[in-house]
């Protein structure tokens, strides 16, 4: 059962991103299945973060269409119609449809409900852990505060919304085991906690798609295991689809339903984890790096994959 073909949440077609003379991503096609954890892997500099930046609106793609069907299965005819209409998003018969390449970054988060984390953590370091989670609910609270007017007079409606935001934040703090540190500045947390907090913060915008850029980087094995559990629970309990960039192959192979491999900006493999790890092109890409140390690292990684039975 390949959900990314039958019920795609996000469909990326012909994505190309050039920086001057450098083509970081070229003619990239893939889709993210609704309710899947999709892993985007590839050697350093393959263009994975660039793909994320295109999906979340931080880069405007040179070419390509990124269609997100938030509700319902997108009908190709309707996607085509929306593309021709020149609009950024619309409610179609099949559901809400968004063309991400036309939308601004904050709109993508606010309307299309795509959340992300960053390769180098970007928390609000000088704000408390709790404040980080409250800022993430900015748009809901802004609406409840009547664009600040009701909030200024602290109306009951606003107070209710604030309590709800607080409850949601505390719920997430419980899930990532940080309730005790709610009132501490986010910048003072240990690295692993900061990573989990960034994921919780992204979840607080109530996303349909959660994009995580190397969430296991710098984690110890115990923290990696906790992360795996958290990712599964996000998929199964919250019903949120996850797009994951990860170098830690054990994490990738344990949690992902679908793996896409990128090398030098081109897709070299796409399929179930089992199939991808046996793909000779993938093995070659991981071995085909020049640096001696990386070869050894890649070899041991592949050995780890081979030794892993799902």
């Amino acid at each position: 059962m390949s959900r990314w073909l039958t019920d795609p949440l996000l469909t990326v077609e012909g994505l190309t991103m050039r920086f001057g003379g450098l083509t970081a991503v070229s003619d990239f096609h893939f889709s993210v299945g609704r309710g899947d954890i999709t892993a985007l892997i590839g050697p350093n500099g393959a263009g994975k973060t660039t793909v994320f930046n295109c999906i979340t609106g931080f880069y405007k793609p040179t070419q390509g269409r990124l269609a997100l069907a938030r509700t319902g299965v997108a009908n190709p005819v309707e996607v085509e119609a929306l593309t021709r209409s020149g609009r950024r998003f619309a409610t179609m018969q099949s559901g809400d449809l968004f063309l991400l390449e036309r939308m601004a970054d904050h709109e993508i988060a606010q309307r299309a409900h795509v959340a992300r984390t960053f390769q180098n953590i970007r928390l609000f370091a000088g704000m408390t852990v709790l404040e980080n989670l409250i800022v993430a609910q900015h748009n809901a609270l802004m609406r409840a505060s009547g664009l600040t007017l009701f909030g200024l007079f602290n109306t009951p409606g606003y107070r209710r919304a604030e309590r709800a935001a607080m409850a949601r934040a505390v719920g997430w703090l419980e899930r990532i085991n940080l309730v005790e540190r709610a009132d501490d500045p986010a910048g003072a947390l240990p690295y692993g906690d900061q990573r989990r907090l960034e994921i919780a913060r992204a979840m607080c915008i109530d996303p349909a798609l959660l994009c995580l850029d190397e969430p296991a980087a710098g984690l110890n094995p115990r923290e990696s295991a906790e992360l795996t559990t958290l990712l599964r629970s996000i998929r199964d309990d919250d019903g949120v689809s996850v797009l994951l960039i990860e170098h830690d192959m054990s994490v990738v192979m344990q949690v992902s339903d679908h793996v896409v491999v990128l090398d030098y900006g081109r897709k070299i493999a796409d399929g179930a984890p089992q199939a991808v790890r046996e793909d000779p092109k993938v093995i070659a890409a991981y071995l085909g790096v020049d640096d001696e140390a990386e070869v050894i690292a890649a070899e041991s990684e592949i050995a780890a994959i081979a030794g892993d039975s799902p």
Partner: protein
Amino acid sequence: MAAPLDQKRPDLSRALVDAGFAALVTFGLSFPILALRTEQDMQNRLIVEPRWSWSVIAVMVVFCARLLAGLLSDWRARALAIPGALIAVFGAHMGVTQALTHGAGITALGLALLIGAFALDARLRDAPAPVAAPRAERADRSRLISMAGLAALFLFPFVMLAWLGPQGSLKWINNYGVQILIYVMLGWGLNIVVGLAGLLDLGYVAFYAVGAYTYALLSTTFGLSFWICLPLAGVLAAFWGVILGFPVLRLRGDYLAIVTLAFGEIIRVVLINWTDFSNGYAGISSIPRVTFFGVPFTAADDGFAAMLGLEFTPIHRTIFLYFLILCLALLTNVVTLRLRALPIGRAWEALREDEIACRSLGVNTVNTKLTAFALGAMFGGFAGAFFAVRQNFVSPESFTFIESATILAIVVLGGMGSQIGVALAAVAMIGGTEILRELDFLKQIFGESFDPAQYRMLIFGLAMVVMMIWKPRGLISSRTPSIFLKKRTAVAGSLVREGRG
């Protein structure tokens, strides 16, 4: 400076070397600034007139102060010892040159202070460190302190009036009270833009000018009253805030600073050159004075004094102005504090912390920046209208870059984002300037031609340098969280970012 917990014994030779070095630096600095003075002689030529004694005094003062600071480990003892030494030296000088008995008395007082300081230092060094008060108690205390402060601010003019009479109290209520409160309000207004949203604005005075000219022009041409013009001044200033905001949305750091600086200058240059509109350099005079909600502060029969059956004195108007600016400043403070706890205020602070993360969470950074500019400008506009009604005269001279720099210095000195810090910094900077005019006794030391107010900028500069070393993030650098789960713990200043935009 993080002093190690084990008490380090002061070391005489180290302190001497240290003080000698400080004295050397002082000599190097004071030589061009204090010791060489250019004068015009009879033939209109510039001649250099050396004032070596000034330089020597400065070097001696710095040497003594540094030596004492090196020998005393506790700041309270230092605070006692340094004035003590100064008083002793002053007394000795007086004893030699003027009256021996007086001088001896003053010297004895200074020496007593010095000895007391050393005794205190020795006691404190052996005493255990004080235990911090429990949190709840401290919160109660801070509420009590702010209530007391508020009461003191409201009672201030009456106490002054009762103590010094209408003549004597005018200076205190006007030059200290009203003047400081204007800058407190401007500081709080700019704090929204610089301290909370992290957008460096060097042209804030433009909005002050917009507010002032709004009232000046509307009242003189259309005869509108102050109470109608005040909100209009705020609205117009906010409008110009948005106008400035749009072109600078994409700019950050140095570029933002340069464009805002240019904006401030443009407004001023337009006011100078568009004479049909603003009367140019001559400015706008005879702006209607403030009235007590329609009742004028005059000696006439329908005046304020007659209405209340009081004897007429101009101090009534000054006191009313004092309360007016006090209320405007408090309004700025209350609104800012409330906004900080609302989504818009949190978005400002989040923007200062990390703009990219904000965008990834769906925060519309364009709107967020524009509201910060508009609200900051609005309070600047209110203050401007107040300025016009207080002075009855506005001209472009009042809105030069140095004003923007002073307001920004207040915000930076106070600690970006901290309301109380900004207020303290305004008191120190504006009150300090006024106090310089009062220090007549310095003439006894430095001679009749010495005018301490002329050294304002030098002292500002020194104060800034000292602050940068002692507290690089301003008087109050820690940040109070806007919401908490169990307890409100201040965030250390070192974690709070200053914003790059």
